[in-house]
């Protein structure tokens, strides 16, 4: 049993310190008689670059300066400072919130947002300025992904501090929500992680005892993985040293779900620790459709257009990716994970999975 070092508590302290610093910087500027201002990396398209070393999108050197002296800046500037204040209150009182909740909370403080996108954008500004993801400020999206397997965690959320839970306790899996995200990892017997796109297959795997047979933790991404889930996978990979395998539908969209877990998205170019560069996309590949003679559908026009986009995407430079994109374009067909059911309910677990996990 390896020694697990957890980072959740450390991180909370860093987040609080950085929010305090942010406020102190503005405070000092005003004390010196200048309009408060900040500088942050630009998130404009031309400043989003792909870093081959980090294997994810990053922001370039371009920065933007926001000043309260500028009449167009002062309102978003005020909202940003309020956002930081609100985040710090959440962190201090160990409360969680959602983006929607942030939008409504602002009205109570007389710094209302015009609409949800404006509020979301300010939270992204805050992430960029302070250098932490909003989940670190306890601002979460609506959750829908889950985890199942032999991993014991210890909660840090108020009222649950010190309480431990084994993630096999609930047969539906455990929701990857704020409490789990901030939990410390205690121990695990698993030696791999299998991430699954669809709920149906996740349940099937639990029923077929895939976690036992393959000694694995099962993570349901429920479509495109939320950021909290991507960060959770990152932690499983980094802190527990577990290899990550991703199973998605055999189409350009499933392929991209895997890619975002591996290399992240352009929207999160200002953030780190959301990617798992060593994770593997294990299927369903285009070549699987051919090799396993899977029942398949024709690619639609939108699918084909998307494939051509992905072919030019810097994240898709690898051999596997290029090969699969080409094969999709060649066979012009796609298949869902459930397609394996034509060979019986357990075929995927008994035949396909062992082959792919080799």
């Amino acid at each position: 049993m390896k020694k697990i070092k957890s980072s959740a508590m450390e991180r909370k302290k860093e987040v609080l310190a950085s929010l305090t610093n942010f406020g102190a910087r503005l405070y000092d500027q005003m004390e010196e008689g200048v309009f408060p201002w900040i500088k942050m990396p630009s998130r404009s398209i031309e400043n989003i670059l792909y870093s081959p070393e980090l294997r994810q999108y990053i922001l370039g050197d371009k920065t933007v300066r926001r000043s309260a002296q500028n009449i167009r800046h002062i309102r978003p500037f005020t909202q940003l400072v309020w956002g930081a204040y609100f985040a710090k209150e959440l962190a201090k009182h160990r409360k969680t919130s959602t983006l929607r909740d942030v939008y409504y909370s602002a009205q109570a403080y007389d710094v209302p947002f015009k609409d949800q996108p404006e509020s979301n954008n300010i939270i992204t500004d805050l992430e960029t300025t302070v250098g932490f993801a909003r989940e670190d400020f306890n601002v979460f999206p609506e959750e829908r992904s889950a985890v199942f397997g032999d991993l014991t965690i210890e909660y840090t959320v108020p009222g649950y501090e010190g309480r431990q839970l084994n993630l096999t306790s609930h047969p539906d899996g455990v929701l990857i929500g704020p409490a789990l995200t901030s939990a410390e990892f205690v121990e695990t017997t698993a030696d791999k992680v299998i991430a699954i796109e669809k709920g149906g297959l996740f349940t099937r795997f639990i029923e077929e005892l895939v976690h036992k047979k393959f000694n694995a933790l099962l993570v349901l991404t429920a479509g495109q993985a939320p950021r909290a889930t991507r960060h959770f996978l990152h932690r499983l990979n980094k802190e527990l040293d577990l290899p990550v395998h991703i199973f998605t539908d055999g189409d350009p969209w499933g392929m991209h779900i895997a890619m975002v877990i591996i290399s992240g998205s352009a929207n999160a170019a200002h953030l780190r620790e959301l990617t798992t560069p060593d994770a593997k996309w294990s299927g369903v590949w285009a070549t699987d459709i051919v090799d396993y003679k899977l029942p398949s559908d024709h690619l639609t026009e939108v699918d084909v257009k998307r494939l051509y986009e992905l072919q030019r995407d810097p994240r898709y430079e690898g051999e596997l990716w290029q090969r699969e994109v080409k094969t999709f374009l060649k066979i012009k067909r796609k298949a869902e994970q459930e397609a394996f059911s034509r060979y019986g309910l357990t075929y995927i677990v008994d035949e396909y999975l062992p082959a792919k996990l080799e």
Partner: protein
Amino acid sequence: MVTFEEISPADFFYRNRDIAGFTNPARAIFSSVRELMENALDASELTRIPPEIYIRLSDEGESGPEAAIWLRVMDNGSGVPARHVPSAFGQVLFGSKFKLKQARGTFGLGGKMAILYGQITTHKPASVASSTGTSKIYEYKLMIDIQRNRPIILDRKIRVNEERWHGTVVEFCLEGDYIRAMPKILEYLKQTAVVNPYANITFVDPKGRLYKFTRVTTKMPPPPKETLPHPYGVDVETIQRLTSITECRNMLDFMRTHFHRVGENISLSFLEFAGFIRTTDPKKMTPEDVTRLVQAMQSFKEFPKEVDVETIQRLTSITECRNMLDFMRTHFPEVQGSVFLRLLQIAGFIRTKDPRKLEPDEIVRLVRMMKRFKGFLPPDASCLSPLGEELLEAGILKELNPEFIAVYQRKPSTYSGHPFIVEIAIAYGGNVPKKGDFAMYRFANRIPLLYDEVSDVSWKIIKSINWRRYKVTPDMPIAILVHLCSTKVPYKTVGKEFIADRPEVKREILNGLREVARQLQRFLSRREHVEKQRRRLVTISKYLPKIAAYSTELAEKEKPPDVEKLLKGVKKFEED
């Protein structure tokens, strides 16, 4: 069988009343008010006493589009001498305005047309009372004999003028549609008040409603002076008439006496240019001629002092020139231009024709040459009576009460020998109507022009300007005023409603408009700037304290930073 007959001027206008603005009952009542109003204003220009004008319209209980309406107009002007009253009000094309100076009326037609129209629609006589300030007031009851263009005097009374009142009262009945004419009449009176800020105008309408336009100044613009015709502006008929009445016996005097800004030198140059000068053959000079020439030459410093009788005699013997001008120019090539003409004139070698004996083809040539000759001075503007920037501004302030006003008087200019001055004003805000387009006020010789706006040269110019350059948008409450004064306003029609596109006039209006538009732009920019700063202060005052408060919380400080200094800085910026 074709019959030929002569008709009188009154008959002509009776048959063609449309061209003078009496198209329908609504238009007729408007035109009547306007014509009599203008006569009244012109009459007070002469006395230099600020006008008091009273206009009353009353019906006899009936109303509707063809009601008989009484129109009464009273002024405190110079009055009409008793012997002229019948003709002045009962004979078309009889008048005092056929002279070259700026006046509102020009045709001697308007007032009489109104009375004529009243007569043919209601067959009632007109009453006129007038006094020039003597001890008597003359009252006439008149009708017009349309076929003979003669006044018919029905009654004449003389009353004692104890108060030495001067002025004129005209009253007559006409068929008119006041309800339809009302908006135009009120607009006309209002605009008249704008350009006559020294006038008191009272108007009572058939419903008994009283409208008063009160003067804001007693200062009146200097009266126009009468002037001679400018050579560029005359035609063959004018010269013909002048030659028949002139007392001059040579062309040089004729030019100097009868034309505007033509002196001896210009006369000489022009007559030479036009070929109306004859000089002696140098070979035929008598010894006296030579002596006179030499004496004259010695009085001009341009000629060498050593020239004497002998020199000239020697030159005459060898010269091939057949007239004195060529002779002088050939043998004194070092001397310049017009000196020769002056010299020969002094020495008595220049002869011109008796103007009374000009042949018809010579008159035609003279007129043609007048148009071609480049040496005439432009007409001066003393014959014009512009309102002046000060009075124009007073008039606009009084009637429109705008937030901003710019007025500009252009320098005098000319078209076809007629002097003119353009005055331009632009007003913003206040009572300026906001109608999605500029409110336009056009005036010619202080008459408001209300009809056919889109045919007017000013309208075309305004439309041709790119107003966005001046920060002007169509939704702004902006009024533009264009006043053209001239001895001859280039109207396109007898109805005197709009001004033709003369290039010279167009250029003056355009340049004037640009000037006031630039001033408006400065005002709008300034206002925009102040408004922007004000909004800036409001915004910063709203948000900066919040930034300070949240920063204090974040930084875990005791008291918020002092942002008053920053806010003061913004306020100060506003006062700049």
